[in-house]
């Protein structure tokens, strides 16, 4: 199936990897630190659901604030940093020349993380805004926008200045994510924070922002990783690649229209929710194509990287189908306003996004540090905690939400009874979240160890020259 490496094949690890070491390690290290913090806060949140008086005397960690904190730390701490690191690295490698303006990446990363820290302190002390995914207080927003720009410019330069005129699906997704987020973020800032819209339009802009940030930023970042890793590790070209472009544009064009999917039966004109439901259904085409194109991940042949990606892909496609399902009015009648929505967002964030990015982290860190990971046991342990934790968390929340939704629709069932019905499932979710935090802590430690040893010791990892991929496989 593959030929022996020819003399023309360049080395697997080059200057591209080594030069990006510091900036990418900074991005990844801060990302994982935020992920652990966010996980710990999510754990506090779940404990509070089971025993409401937990930490209730502490105003910084009231239930609502803790939720805002963990969400912000996840999106702007973990997802932004890690997604940028992976996208920059892949754009650099496929572009064929070392990343430029890396000093700006480091500066931007520092300022971004300072802004996120200030934002979290602001939320904890009472400056939070009440928009999902945009709880950040107003004073950190402009700084974040500038910092994001300084990091992302390196990726856009790698794309526009690429040596190789050919492009690949992973690059499309990466460039789209890097380029579109500032527009979405600044439009949402202006319309929600600086010159807020009136009435329900605030909620509508908020809904558009969340769906835009997912379909045009986080999902493309995750797919960058998956589209690169699956053919790269398996050595097999993507089947029905003709559809990759159509699927890409479906996500971009239709994704933004799903913004009204949480407003079914709500105080916005009926067409908003109808269009969102229809768009969720149209996106199924994108999900099907992604699933088919990247199905090689499911026959991983023992590669842990591909196992992570496969789990992420499964979660991504399943999440797409659940979105389309719950955007139908009859289903939303039960799932709306319940833990089921939380299950869906955990499936997307912890299940799809994090898993695909974990895969990329395990693949890229040995290449940029020149050091193999310290322990394969730690990698396996993290893999197990991640898949068990995520599956249990999502399943428990989904069941709890389904029960809660049916109970809510029966006016005879009081809230105390509903709490009793969901208690067991929420306890399962709490345990699952604890497992997730533990696993992510392992990865953080593992990464720090790699980073330290790469500073102290010369490169020891050995990457053999990869074979050449042939066009007409399968």
């Amino acid at each position: 199936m593959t030929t022996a490496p020819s003399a023309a094949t360049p080395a697997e690890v080059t200057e591209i990897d080594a030069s990006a070491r510091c900036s990418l390690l900074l991005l990844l290290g801060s990302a994982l630190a935020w992920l652990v913090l966010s996980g710990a806060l999510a754990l506090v949140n779940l404990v509070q659901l089971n025993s409401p008086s937990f930490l209730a005397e502490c105003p910084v960690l009231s239930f609502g604030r803790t939720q805002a904190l963990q969400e912000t730390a996840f999106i702007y701490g973990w997802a932004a940093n890690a997604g940028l690191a992976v996208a920059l690295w892949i754009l650099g490698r496929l572009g064929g020349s070392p990343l430029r303006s890396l000093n700006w990446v480091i500066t931007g990363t520092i300022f971004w993380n300072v802004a996120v820290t200030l934002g979290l302190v602001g939320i904890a002390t009472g400056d939070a805004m009440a928009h999902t995914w945009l709880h950040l207080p107003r004073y950190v927003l402009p700084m974040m926008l500038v910092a994001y720009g300084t990091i992302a410019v390196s990726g856009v330069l790698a794309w526009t200045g690429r040596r190789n005129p050919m492009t690949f699906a992973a690059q499309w997704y990466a460039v789209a994510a890097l380029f579109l987020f500032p527009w979405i973020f600044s439009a949402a800032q202006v319309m929600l924070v600086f010159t807020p819209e009136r009435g329900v339009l605030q909620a509508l802009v908020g809904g558009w922002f969340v769906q835009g940030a997912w379909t045009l930023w986080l999902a493309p970042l995750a797919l960058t990783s998956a589209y690169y890793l699956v053919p790269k590790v398996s050595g097999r070209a993507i089947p029905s690649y003709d559809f990759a472009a159509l699927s890409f544009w479906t996500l971009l064009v239709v994704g933004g229209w799903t913004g009204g999917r949480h407003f079914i039966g709500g105080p916005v004109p009926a067409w908003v929710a109808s269009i969102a439901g229809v768009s969720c259904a149209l996106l199924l085409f994108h999900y099907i194509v992604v699933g088919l194109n990247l199905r090689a991940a499911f026959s991983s042949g023992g590669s842990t990287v591909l196992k992570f990606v496969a789990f992420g892909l499964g979660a991504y496609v399943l999440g797409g189908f659940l979105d389309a399902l719950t955007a139908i009015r009859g289903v939303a009648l039960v799932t709306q306003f319940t833990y089921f929505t939380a299950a869906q967002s955990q499936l997307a964030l912890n299940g799809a996004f994090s898993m695909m990015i974990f895969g990329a982290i395990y693949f890229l860190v040995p290449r940029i540090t020149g050091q193999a990971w310290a322990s394969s046991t730690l990698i396996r342990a993290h893999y197990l905690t991640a898949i068990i934790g995520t599956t249990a968390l999502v399943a428990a929340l989904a069941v709890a939400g389904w029960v809660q939704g049916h109970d809510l629709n029966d006016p005879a069932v009081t809230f105390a009874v509903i709490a009793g019905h969901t208690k067991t499932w929420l306890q399962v979710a709490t345990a699952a979240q604890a497992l997730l935090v533990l696993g992510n802590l392992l990865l953080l430690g593992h990464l720090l160890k790699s980073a330290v040893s790469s500073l102290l010791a010369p490169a020891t990892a050995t990457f053999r020259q990869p074979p050449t991929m042939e066009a007409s496989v399968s």
Partner: protein
Amino acid sequence: MKNGFTFFLGLFLALALAWAGIVLGSHAQLGHLAPYFDENEGKAFPERLPGIAARGQLVYQDLGCAACHTQQVRRPDFGSDKARGWGDRQSVARDYVSQPHVQLGESRIGPDLANFGARPLAVDAERLTQYLYDQHGGMPPYRFLFETRKITGERSATALKVPAAVGMEVVPTHRAQALVAYLQSLNNVYEYPEARPVEPAEEKKEGAAK
């Protein structure tokens, strides 16, 4: 995808199209929505929040109350909102035009609060203040909205009837008082023309059969 400029233009257009459709489209429809002036009553609805209630809305926002409570009633034949006594009609866009920070919420771990001000618990400010202090079912106590202080002269009128050390009293802070005023102000009972229940469109079904 090889042509960089076309690619960026495509990306931008994809985003701009959805933004124009969802955000600008609804802005064009609802951006100028005004309170409804009722000639019979000589007032416009919804009424503006009184100053203290507007401050209370900020407390509601910064404590993240929307994490557990929605403020949107679904129509009577869609869910049990009416049967649970949350409101007789569905919430409409006009209900929110006077609110500086709209708190629709996405989760019903606790009950909907869109018309909370009309419920027995909210009518009595003293009882509602006490409610925030105690724990009830799944709702945590909000003790940090209260302060325990020494009684100087007479007991304050706002002091809670809770056990406190000798010579001490538990009083709500300004934030608690503002929050209570805001919760009491939540009442959207005025029936706007667009909020009346509608007959399902019958002739639509014929269209579907064609």
